[in-house]
């Protein structure tokens, strides 16, 4: 079932009673309750939010991704349970013991899926994509030819109707929208990985020692174009995108509910993420050879 996303941008006191999350407001507004088991993601984005430890414990037990944001309103923390799955220890062992050739193969599959999705997104605008098609077909094990970067260079040049767009962490808008959207996506994927009993820390490709979510960053690659689509839509329809206001965030927070096509079926992105992470585990355990990724279009 599709889980709910709660976003807190105003002062609030969050506590728990009867397995419900209770939101109390500083003014005289009546309290609101939300069943904790229905929640998939909580975003805390105001310095004046108080949250009880009892509530955090219940959220973690229900595998909710709890994201907190810094003064710039950008997500900077993610709280996930240590015991995401009943077979966690065994599953992590499979993950750690995955052989180098298997990892390289999985990475090649991931990049192929990513480039295909990027291509499909560009094709919607009648931009020629032979180059991407070719790159997607010729991905080698471990992406030794670095097709990912070649595809990205072409993709970012053409995705927006903005002449000097550069995809950079601290670049000009809509980079801010992309950063926010990817942070949400990362939370969804990390949550799915944990609930499938894997460690989001140990990647198949990303291995930067300063990155705590390497595997999430690996697995989210083919999902990025779905965020890009939302952002492109916003770039085209919104008057101002320089400042991330509540309206822009509202749109970006619909990402978990986006419909994607996975394995021939339509499914919300958040549900698809769990399918992907389960198929990833099956690859680690030697049950299957293929990660299931959503296809764009």
């Amino acid at each position, binding site marked *: *079932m*599709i889980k*709910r*996303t*709660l*976003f*807190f*941008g*105003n002062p*609030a006191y969050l506590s728990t009673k*009867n*397995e*419900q999350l209770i*939101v109390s407001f500083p003014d005289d507004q009546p309290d*609101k*309750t*939300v*069943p904790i*088991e*229905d929640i998939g993601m909580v975003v805390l984005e105001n310095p004046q939010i108080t949250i009880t430890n009892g509530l955090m414990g219940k959220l973690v037990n229900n595998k909710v991704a709890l994201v907190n944001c810094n003064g710039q309103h950008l997500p900077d923390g993610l709280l996930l349970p240590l015991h995401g799955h009943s077979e966690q220890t065994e599953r992590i062992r499979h993950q750690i013991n995955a052989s180098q050739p298997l990892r390289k193969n999985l990475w090649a599959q991931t990049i192929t899926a990513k480039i295909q999705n990027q291509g499909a997104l560009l094709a919607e605008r009648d931009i020629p994509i032979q180059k991407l098609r070719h790159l997607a077909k010729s991905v080698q094990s471990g992406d030794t030819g670095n097709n990912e970067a070649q595809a990205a260079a072409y993709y970012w040049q053409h995705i927006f109707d903005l002449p000097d767009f550069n995809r950079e962490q601290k670049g000009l808008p809509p980079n801010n929208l992309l950063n926010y959207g990817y942070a949400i996506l990362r939370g969804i994927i990390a949550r799915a990985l944990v609930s499938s009993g894997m460690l989001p820390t140990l990647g198949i490709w990303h291995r930067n020692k300063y990155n705590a979510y390497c595997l999430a960053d690996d697995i989210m690659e083919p999902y990025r174009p779905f965020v890009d689509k*939302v952002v492109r*839509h916003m770039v085209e329809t919104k008057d101002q995108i320089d400042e991330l206001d*509540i309206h822009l*965030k*509202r749109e970006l*927070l*619909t990402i*978990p*509910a*986006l*419909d994607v096509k996975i394995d021939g079926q339509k499914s*919300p992105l958040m549900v698809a993420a769990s399918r992907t992470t389960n198929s990833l585990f099956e690859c680690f355990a030697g049950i299957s050879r293929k990660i299931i990724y959503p296809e764009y279009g």
Partner: protein
Amino acid sequence: MDESFYSRLNQYRSLWVLVFFDLPTETKKDRKIASSFRKKLLDDGFSMFQFSIYMRFCASRENADVHIKRVKKNLPPKGKVGIMCITDKQFGMMELFYGTKVAEKETPSQQLELF
């Protein structure tokens, strides 16, 4: 975004589960059973609509089935319990009054909520 984008949560697919009950409260034991039944409803995310009528919003038929099953599992040994599902569309057509004043009804929870 196109229309189908939000179709998953439309008014005809999302449901309200209503639980009506009359439980004996003659003896201390009966009252204990009755209050534990009520407590379990609250734990499961139901909220009080009227005394002995509790309701819960469910985003899909599958989700409603989960909660109906839980209510059935916790049925008290004695007393009368009714469980009913209506679509959000039907729920939205209900008219509510406090005295003669029109009252607002509970809105369904959205997939995304901003506080």
